[in-house]
């Protein structure tokens, strides 16, 4: 007959032995083994609990208390060791799974918009903000749209200002790569009655060889406003507004009289140099001014060519080179860069 005291003493012994075994476990596996031995179904502690039945009822409480005390001790010892071993394992796997973040990054392919597209969109957006729509026209034009309707009669010396690339279609020299985006003015006025407020960005062509400073293809943006009461004042103010929008309100606009067959009065416009702020530098050839383009009031002859009454409506038109703006804003000194498709260039944008 086992006594209650024996059983209680055995419970304490088991608790001590178990705590030692847990503390000695060198790995989570060994700890799991020890846990089965001391806390599992066939553990000594379970046997003691089973043996309670053989103890007198009055003494069972002593044994029960000893068993639950031992169990609590064992569980505490297990948890303590488990925490340590878990920590060790985590540290181990962290070391093993270490990644050098500087090895990356995995190549995320971001493409790059051509700078002329970027600036072209910016220009469109500025004019959309001023209330303009965007008009388009063909890159190959007839003599009528490229010259004659714009008041360039055959043999007119102003035609010599344009070095034209002709296309082998129809009569000789009747079809050409447009030398400016101005034909879009005429097409727009033919296709809709005033009021008209449009800009037309696009390509124009001249007989030139591609090199650092020239290209047979260049980009222009053309503007046209036709309405009642449009004045030269409005033209100057509109050009000044877009220069401010694109380059900043501290940049000045300058206008000088000029000549274009399809506008009168005609002006050419420049802005104070964005680099030297008008002091004079290499970009502006020490003049403090950067020439941008030409403009003027729509010539009555052009209105007559498209059937708009010049006594009722007045209008202005302007045009300038987008490539030039790109060169200025992005410091591109070599025109060829725009055409080579060199990714060392395009990936900068």
């Amino acid at each position, binding site marked *: 007959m086992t006594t209650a005291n024996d059983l209680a003493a055995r419970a304490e012994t088991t608790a001590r032995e178990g705590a030692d075994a847990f503390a000695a476990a060198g790995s989570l596996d060994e700890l799991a083994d020890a846990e089965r031995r001391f806390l599992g179904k066939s553990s000594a502690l379970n046997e003691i609990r089973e043996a309670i039945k053989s103890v007198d009822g009055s003494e069972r409480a002593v044994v029960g208390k000893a068993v639950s005390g031992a169990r609590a001790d064992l569980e505490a010892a297990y948890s303590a060791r488990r925490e340590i071993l878990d920590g060790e394992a985590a540290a181990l796997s962290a070391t093993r799974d270490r990644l050098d973040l500087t090895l990356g990054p995995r190549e995320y392919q971001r493409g790059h918009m051509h700078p002329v597209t970027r600036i072209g969109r910016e220009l469109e957006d500025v004019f959309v903000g001023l*209330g303009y729509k965007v008009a388009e026209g063909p*890159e190959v034009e*007839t003599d009528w749209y490229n010259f004659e309707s714009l008041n360039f*009669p055959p043999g007119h010396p102003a035609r010599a200002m344009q070095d034209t690339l*002709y296309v082998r279609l129809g009569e000789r020299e009747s079809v050409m790569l447009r030398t400016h985006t101005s034909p879009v003015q005429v097409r727009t006025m033919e296709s809709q009655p005033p009021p008209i407020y449009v800009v037309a960005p696009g390509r124009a062509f001249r007989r030139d060889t591609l090199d650092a400073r020239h290209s047979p293809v260049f980009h222009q943006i053309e503007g046209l406003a036709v309405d009642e009461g449009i*004045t030269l004042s*409005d033209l*100057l103010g509109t050009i000044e507004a877009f220069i401010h929008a694109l380059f900043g309100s501290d940049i000045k606009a300058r206008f000088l009289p000029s000549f274009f067959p399809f506008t009168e009065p005609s002006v050419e416009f420049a802005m104070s140099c964005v680099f030297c702020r008008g002091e004079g530098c290499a970009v502006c050839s020490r003049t403090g001014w950067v020439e941008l383009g030409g403009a003027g009031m729509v010539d009555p002859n052009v209105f007559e060519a498209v059937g708009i009454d010049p006594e009722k409506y007045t209008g202005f038109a302007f045009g300038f080179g987008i490539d030039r703006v790109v060169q200025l804003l992005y410091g591109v000194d070599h025109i060829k860069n725009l055409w080579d498709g060199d990714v060392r260039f395009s990936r900068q944008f």
Partner: protein
Amino acid sequence: MRAPLSWIREFTPLEGIGVEAIADALNQLGLEVEGIDEPGRDVNGVVAARILDVVPHPDADRIRLADVDFGDGHVRVVCGAPNIEAGMVVPFARVGAVLPGDFKIERRTIRGVVSEGMLCSARELGLGDDHDGILSLPDNAPLGTDVREILGLDDAVFDLSITPNRPDAMGIVGVARELAAHFGSPFSVDEREPAPLFDEVAGARVIVEAPDRCPRFVALAARVVMGESPAWLQRRLVLAGMRPISNVVDVTNYVMLERCRPLHAYDLAKLPGRGIVVRLAADGEKMTTLDGVERTLSSADLLICDGERRPQGIAGIMGGAEAEVSDTTTEILLESAYFEPSGIALTSKRLGLRSEASARFERGVDPNNAGTGADRAMELLVEVAGAVPAAGAIDVYPEPIERKRITIRTERVNALLGTSLSRDEIAAYLTPLDITLDGPVDELGATVPTFRPDLEREIDLIEEVARRVGLDSIARTVPSSAAKIGGLSSRQRDRRAVGDVLVGAGYDEVYTLPLLAPADLTNVGLETDGLIEVENPLRAEESILRPALLPGLLRSVAYNVAHGAPDVALFESGTVFGLPRPGESLPAERHSVAFARAHHARRAPHEPDRDVDVYDATAALDALAQELRITDIRLDAVAVPGFHPTRAARVVVDGRAVGAIGEVAATVVDALSLAGPVVACEIDVDALLESARTDRMSSPVSRFPASTVDLAFVVDDRIPAAALQKTLAAAGGELVENVALFDVFRSDALGPGKVSLAFSLRFRAVDRTLTDDEVSALRKKCIDAVVAAHGAELRS
């Protein structure tokens, strides 16, 4: 047009007005200043000195010692020039002087002798290339005077860019008139008509057979002594950019530059028949111009012929060699004519022959200064060529050209310019331009000078008012119409989206020249028929307009390979050109987009790169289709020129072929020296955007659980996976949410030419949870559909 300030000042004093102020004024007047030459600006401290004595250098043969008197004292300088001698007056650069090129003169010891300065050649003073000897100054030049004064180097020459509407400003007088008006400076020019008029002069006659092409012809004659022009005349011509030739020729050029009055002097002794006939050429007629080139003429060309009707010059453009004045000339006939401008322009353009004279005639010289200009020339010939004028002059001018009258309305001026000028203010602006005015209160009758052929209409005078007011004085406003509603069209927004998607997909945008050579097309396997050819290409490599973007784009890929960047993803968006559509005169222009990826797709730096493949290209195409909401897009596996025979497809949208996609053929990779593999695609964006697209309406999202069914089919491997996918989606109807291919498996066990394609189908209803029975029925329906449509077998 180069305009020396000293010359301008002969017509208007511009007192107290500096070079900068004058340049600003010229710009504001529309006579653009492209540059200002101040030849004396870089010559400082050089004075006139007289050589008193020249002695040999004690230690050198080639150099000598000169004692010079520069007014304030005497010094000794060492000089290597052979032409110095006692008594000469020469430019002497004192110690401390600065010559062009920032060359500072210091005291130097040359072979043991101290030189207190330097004597200068023309080149050292920046006066041209002459470096043969020391420049000789006039004997009477006051010693110690700055040489800039003596040599006229204290001048400024404005290099003006004259617009084609302003022939008057191609003469010094015209420029002076503008400046005088601007500054309110007095203006005067001496003008006399030659008189009296005879039918012949010095026995020579003039017959004008084409008066519409030559409305006026003035001829004077004189006996002359040929020789060099005096220094002042030569210097003026050089400053104005012309080369002195002989006194007679120099005078004609001088008057052309001064008054925009081109003249021509003939050796009268070499004009057979002693006369002039102005006539149209015969087709194919030939003559040799004085540049030694034989020209073939047409019946649209106007000739100046001798009395025997043989050509002696192309009217208004260039004289002939035969009757050119030379050293032996003793008697000249001076031509001063007015030719109809567009005739000169057309002949000049057709012959590719331009001259200072033709540049002026084609813009329109003043018909009414033909006489006064000839008179001015004769006055100079008397002075510089010992001319003895023959009595009288010939003036063939059957229909004199009158000054035009134009009405200018005050209200119209202000309506166009946005100004509020009065009639009198307008009159005050126009009067100094030699425009005379009269008329009632609210409008003016203007009589405009014939030297301003650009003034024909009211608007032309309004422009003059704007120039005179000054553009800086005009207010800056913007149109205030409520009709201005800006924005892009949906087509324009979609085109932007195409670019955005490709940039997002990793492609760099490039521009390539739209001008190609036929070889660029054959290089990439394209046909060379139906091309638009350039009539006058500058280079054979740019002789056609591109019918597609890929030839240029692949060339850019090659460019990058050659520059050490083989792993590229590029795209271009732009116009391509085809033959005109029936009934059209212009080429068919389409908006196209092409993209290409080459060589390796890089992963992380420590992982191996992989070759790009066609699925890189289809991924970008898929992204485009999604962005543009195109659902009916399919890839038809057919052979496409320029592509791998079995790794390419036509892109078919809405039943219409819109482009091609695939791996670029090995032959093309070789031909362009590309680093393969290269995958590429070109799509007709216009066609893409014109095809059927889903609308922007959204669909409700189900809140009920989905049922997933996986099905694997064994099919012939020629059958596109997309076909099965489409069949499954159709069979599932609106309850199928997604059909995804998740495994492709080939094995001998499946049989030759067979492939297993495994799909995961997700079913879901918007309004309920699907029952097991419903899902089973859907599953069966899908299986049956694939089996029936593709001869597939369900793999269990």
